[in-house]
């Protein structure tokens, strides 16, 4: 099979290890000395003001963005320019975007089977079976034959989660999955994510949903100005923030909601 010469994922060590990682956009130093280890099965919530580099950081993990200094290691595979490594890591890591990014020209079912068929080289019937299983998990199997444009925002985001899960990833990245949704739809998406956390998925979630953080996170990370300012387990983080910037940020988001 074609998998013989790809870098093999190592399932024993940490899920993600980022050390002394820096990134620049031109002259702009967007990520500064990021150090972060994510253990297998760990759930991490990342928060921080807009523009602090949260998206950039998690997009470096599946190489949608390239870092310039330091190292990122995912499931034992070092992220370099080696295309084989990038392919392997992208198969291991699922991602859910703020704006869903479903493929509008494909049905919900086709959205879910596309990658298993073309990347995992799976027979169509098997891919569809798996897709239906995950569509049931996110509670919209009856929408399988519809197109994304015919669904509500909450439904679309649940399809996007199912689409990622169909690749059977080890790690799931979420970039503000609920911030483009109307308030009444946020819960249905968070419920799916809570279920996923209960099943032991390794999750890295950028979100400002503090209820979600308290309920599922093992650790909350606060970023500002491209740096990790502070990290702690959720209760301690919310009740007893250490830095002034964290306090200010928490007072702003809690004051508003």
């Amino acid at each position, binding site marked *: 099979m074609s998998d013989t010469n790809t870098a093999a994922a190592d399932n024993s060590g940490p899920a993600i290890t980022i050390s002394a990682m820096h990134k620049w956009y031109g002259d702009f130093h967007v990520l500064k000395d990021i150090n972060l280890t994510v253990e297998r099965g760990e759930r991490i919530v990342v928060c921080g003001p807009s523009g602090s580099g949260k998206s950039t950081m998690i997009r470096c993990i599946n190489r949608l963005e390239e870092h310039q200094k330091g190292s990122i290691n995912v499931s034992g595979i070092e992220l370099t320019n080696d295309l084989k490594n990038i392919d392997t890591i992208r198969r291991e890591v699922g991602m859910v975007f703020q704006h869903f990014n479903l493929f509008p020209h494909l049905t919900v079912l086709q959205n879910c089977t596309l990658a298993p068929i073309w990347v995992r080289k799976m027979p169509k019937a098997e891919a569809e079976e798996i897709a239906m299983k995950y569509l049931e998990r996110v509670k919209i199997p009856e929408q399988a034959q519809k197109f994304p444009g*015919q669904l509500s925002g909450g439904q679309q985001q649940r399809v996007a989660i199912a689409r990622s899960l169909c690749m059977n990833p080890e790690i799931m990245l979420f970039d503000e999955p609920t911030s483009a949704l109307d308030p009444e739809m946020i819960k249905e998406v968070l419920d799916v994510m809570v279920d996923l956390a209960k099943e032991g998925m390794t999750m890295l979630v950028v979100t400002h949903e503090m209820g979600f953080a308290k309920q599922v996170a093992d650790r909350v990370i606060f970023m500002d100005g491209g740096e990790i300012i502070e990290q702690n387990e959720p209760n301690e983080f919310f009740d007893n923030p250490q830095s002034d910037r964290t306090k200010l940020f928490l007072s702003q988001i809690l004051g508003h909601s």
Partner: protein
Amino acid sequence: MTIETVDTQPKPNLLNDPKFRAIAAQIVVVVLFVSFVAYIISNTAVNLEKLGIKAGFEFLGLQAGFMPTSPNFNLTDFDVNKDTHMDVFWLGLVNTLLIAVLGIIAATIVGFVFGVLRLSKNPLVNFVAAAYIEGVRNIPLLLQILVWYFGVLLALPIVKQSINMGDLVFLNNRYLVAPAPIFEDGFGFVTIAFIIGIVATFFLARWAHKRQDTTGQQFPIFYSALGLIIGFPILVLLAMGVPLNWNIPELKGFNFVGGVQITSQLTALFLALTFYTGSFIAENVRAGILAVSHGQTEAAYALGLRPNRTMSLIVIPQAMRVVVPPVTSQYLNLTKNSSLAIAIGYPDIVNVFMGISLNQTGKAIEIIGMTMGVYLTISLLISMFMNWYNKRVALVER
């Protein structure tokens, strides 16, 4: 649903009823249009009668008595000694179709290539593409036709000093001449092999699709198709002992004999139409690709799809629905613009039929009507085909 609710609602005043208004407006438009056409026709008929001109198509059967094209570019084998104005019409029609088909194919290729290059991250490539598109798009087509013809092709050497490419192809200020194939006994098998190759590719593609559905294995369909459609006929050709000869052009006196000749008029018109229309298509293609948001590519990458698959499965299908409608109008433009052929003497329908035949017969109404009918028919056929294609790539929205 709506009908039931309307029935239960009180009826609005007739003048405020949108349905009544829509129907009334249509009736008014139809009445105005019909009266206008009737007026034009009766007015023309009265005027023609006053001038003593009889309308009718008998002239089509009369011998034309002039040679509408040069002897080395005579696709319909026009015979000046017996052929009629109807034959002039056919000759012009064939030449118009020829330049339209060649131009559409070439402009599509040029447009797609430069549209993609225009998006290149390489600054040099990007600059070259931008310079071509902006330069060519903003200069009148007629000027470009004249530049290609008078500036480039007529500036080539005279026939006796033709540019010689390997003793096979010769280029001069009147034409390009290349070897012409002569098919001998047995070449029919090669043609049959070619047809078999196409049919086999069709079935192979279906088989490969089915197999991927059932086993997940992918099949290199592109290279197999190449082998079947090109490789197989070549094998048959060799097996048959190459039943094919070439009629190689040779300079005899003041002219070349043998080979196929492509006149400078055709070349100039073809190049001008191709690059002019290609620059517009390039812009359409660029807009279409840009219309597919970057998030689509990122989502595909995040799922592990490679860039080439992302392009063919995600970006192109979505870009096509934006690209097809404006490209359709570019095809129509190219076809209609081909009538500028008259400026350099390419024998298209406007030049030979609406030009010379009209001059000789004076049958303005009939000839202009027929010529307009030709363009209208071609344009409608192109539109119908592109609409059908567009339906296939259209997106289901809410």
